[in-house]
């Protein structure tokens, strides 16, 4: 991005506020100040959440509620709202809301940011904080009959649990009872269904052929990832888990999210050589992930299992082969280490470069094929153009990121806006389409593959010329990492699906005190009802496909 960076940052220059200016803006609302590594933190009372967030949103331009972290501390419960600006994500602020131990109730932020809906339900489910004024305070990830809040301090994991399996009732039936023409019908899609991309349950209410209401019911793959990470040591034991969040081969992208947060937390440098390898590997992953997204989208829209899906898998297979050479694994790479990567490029290097170059060389032709088969196909066009519309303001309000947001015309990409790795020094573009529909989200992914290919090509050129005795793949990292007590950090990277952020609070030991994953799919999936209410069922399936969700990342 280096070539265009000055110009874009000028055109996008966003007013910066110093920490004190923000404190002045918030005035009496602030009852304390904190300093997190990523941003200043303001402590507020639990009954002034909406006021504070709307001030920050409307007056200071923090229009992106990227994450909500809830936690039980020794003497209090705490919710932290991480806010950013879509126009400049390097400007961040955290709003800390402590509540008392015996009555953990805090005001809901849902009226200010729609995305808070699910985030707060999750905080209630896992930690046990209640949000006053929330429209629908239910469990979201765990079964409704679950007893206790697993990330709270007094939770007994050995305790038996009873999980019910019920018929679902039609939520709209009452409204329509006396209207003969619009009988609504209730339809369950999933959790075992070929079109849901995994174990997702959609509770749909149909009015004739149209979707009157859809409620995504998640939690069928909630694998306790946050707990697993909190039980692992920083240095080695956490790294295998990120691979399993967005498991569509986006492993290295996810690993980078953890690596970035932990490295900044523990002040670890990464050698430049390793950064180039990371960048290359991550983009290969992005290609593999987008390929599957495109293949399954075609499968969703016109059931094409024989051509496009197979083509997509063929190209994914090539990317996976290269990644296997690089990392030693096909899917769960576990390749990053704090401070670098685990090993150098495979020997003989020439062969590796050649293989990768061949892949890149064949890619344009393959993409041509896809464009013929998919984007140039009239049937697909008439099925996807103008369906599943997600206006930019709505997308922002829901905290959607990645291709979903860029397909709605918002120019937001952390690789450029909050640079990390080697992206700054490379020449590539952020793809933005302003159709806001299923088609433009598809188009964004297809074009991003080209950009990723450009990045990989440049990385290879750089790696090839790297002097042999300066190939430093890892910096010196202490054997055990013990970041200082009470340091907090939130860092995000641009994953295949969008902003993948990690919040860590260190508690002075070699394991994190709180490890929170902000997954892009979780926020993206929330937009599904917005996109599909009033549409036909198959268009809803297409919208779901265009969101490209991975349940491993939605549920974590």
């Amino acid at each position, binding site marked *: 991005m280096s070539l265009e960076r000055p110009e874009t940052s000028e055109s996008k220059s966003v007013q910066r506020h110093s920490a004190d200016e923000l404190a002045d803006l918030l005035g009496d609302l602030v009852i304390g100040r904190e300093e997190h590594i990523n941003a200043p933190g303001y402590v507020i009372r639990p009954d002034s959440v909406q006021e504070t967030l709307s001030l920050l949103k409307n007056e200071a331009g923090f229009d992106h509620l990227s994450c909500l972290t809830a936690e039980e501390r020794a003497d209090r419960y705490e919710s932290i709202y991480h806010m950013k600006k879509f126009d400049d994500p390097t400007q961040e602020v955290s709003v800390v809301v402590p509540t008392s131990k015996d009555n953990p109730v805090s005001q809901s932020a849902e009226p200010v940011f729609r995305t808070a809906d699910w985030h707060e339900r999750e905080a209630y489910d896992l930690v046990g904080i209640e949000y006053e004024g929330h429209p629908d305070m239910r469990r979201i990830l*765990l*079964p409704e*009959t*679950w*007893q206790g809040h*697993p990330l709270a301090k007094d*939770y007994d*994991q*050995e*305790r*038996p*649990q*009873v*999980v*019910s*399996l*019920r018929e679902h009732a039609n939520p709209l039936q009452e409204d329509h009872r006396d209207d003969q023409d619009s009988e609504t019908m209730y339809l369950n899609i999933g*959790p*075992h*269904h*070929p079109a849901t*991309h*995994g*174990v997702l349950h959609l509770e749909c209410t149909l009015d004739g052929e149209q979707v009157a209401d859809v409620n995504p019911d998640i*939690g*069928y*793959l*909630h*694998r*306790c*990832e946050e*707990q*697993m990470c909190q*039980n692992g040591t920083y240095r080695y034991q956490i790294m*295998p*888990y990120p691979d*399993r969040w967005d*498991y*569509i*081969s986006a492993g290295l992208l996810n690993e980078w999210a953890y690596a970035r947060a932990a490295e900044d937390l523990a002040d670890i440098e990464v050698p430049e050589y390793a950064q180039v390898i990371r960048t290359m590997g991550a983009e290969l992953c992005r290609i593999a992930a987008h390929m*599957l997204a495109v293949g399954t989208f075609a499968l969703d829209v016109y059931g094409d299992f024989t051509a496009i*899906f*197979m083509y997509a*898998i*063929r190209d*994914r*297979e090539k990317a996976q082969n290269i990644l296997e050479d690089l990392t030693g694994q*096909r*899917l*769960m790479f576990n390749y990053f280490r704090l401070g670098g990567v685990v090993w150098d490029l495979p020997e003989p290097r020439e062969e590796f470069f050649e293989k990768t170059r061949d892949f890149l060389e064949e890619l344009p032709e393959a993409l041509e094929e896809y464009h013929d088969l998919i984007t140039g196909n009239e049937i697909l066009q008439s099925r996807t153009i103008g369906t599943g519309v997600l206006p930019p303001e709505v997308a922002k309000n829901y905290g959607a990121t990645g291709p979903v947001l860029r397909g709605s015309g918002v120019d937001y990409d952390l690789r450029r806006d909050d640079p990390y790795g080697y992206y700054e020094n490379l020449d590539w573009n952020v793809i933005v389409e302003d159709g806001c529909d299923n088609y433009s989200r598809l188009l964004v992914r297809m074009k991003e593959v080209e950009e990723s290919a450009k990045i990989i090509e440049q990385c290879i050129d750089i790696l090839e010329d790297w002097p042999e005795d300066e190939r430093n793949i890892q910096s010196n990292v202490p054997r055990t990492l013990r970041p200082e007590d009470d340091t907090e950090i939130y860092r995000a990277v641009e994953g295949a699906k969008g902003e993948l952020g990690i919040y860590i609070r260190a508690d002075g030991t070699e394991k994190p005190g709180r490890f929170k994953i902000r997954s892009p799919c979780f926020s993206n999936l929330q937009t599904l009802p917005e996109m599909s209410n009033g549409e036909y069922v198959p268009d809803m399936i297409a919208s779901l496909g265009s969101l490209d969700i991975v*349940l*491993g990342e939605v549920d974590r």
Partner: protein
Amino acid sequence: MSSDQPFVTDDSQVLTDTRDARLAGADNRFNSKLREAFGSSPFILTKFDKFMNWVRGSSMFMLQFGIACCSIEMMHTYAVKHDLDRFGAGVPRASPRQADVIIVPGTIVSKFAPRMKRVYDQMPEPKFVVGMGSCTISGGPFQEGYNVIKGAEEVIPVDIHIPGCPPRPEALVYGVAKLQERIANGESSPVVVKPYELEQFGDLERDEIVDQLAEEIDTDDLVMRYNWADSP
């Protein structure tokens, strides 16, 4: 064969003629080693059970069933490079009613287990289960999680376990081929009652948890009970 002697037929001649006609000529698509061995007779004798087992093993309909990361490798197994179809086991069926093999590819958590059991119950007999990956075997990397079932075996009977995280497509192909071999030999794991079955809530032993939930849950509701302390 001469036509003026209608009632006397030279068997050996007929055999050979038919055979030659089949073996030679432009179109010999239908000739196989098997055909050669059988001659012109279209009949073979075998035990019906044996035959059925062979049939079952040679045309398996797989349930299209994806749970977690392992299902990505499962998709690769169905697709171009590995092509499970070559082994007579690659027709993915979207409905459990049409399938006789279920590959369980991933982590099973408490909310999903009753649903999976229901899908399994809906499959027609005889049915077989392939457990793919460490999660399906034991809970894998998430074994210590508060929500994770420690293996599919806790919910449904599994015929073949394929270790790995995820197993490579080659491993899955091998596992499926092994399963076919076993089915053809008439071996499969007996369906036994497993520790966690769907039960009616009203029939559960009354303990603290059941008492707590008694008001929320209708006694006719189906429920599944998880006893984390006693599971492996």
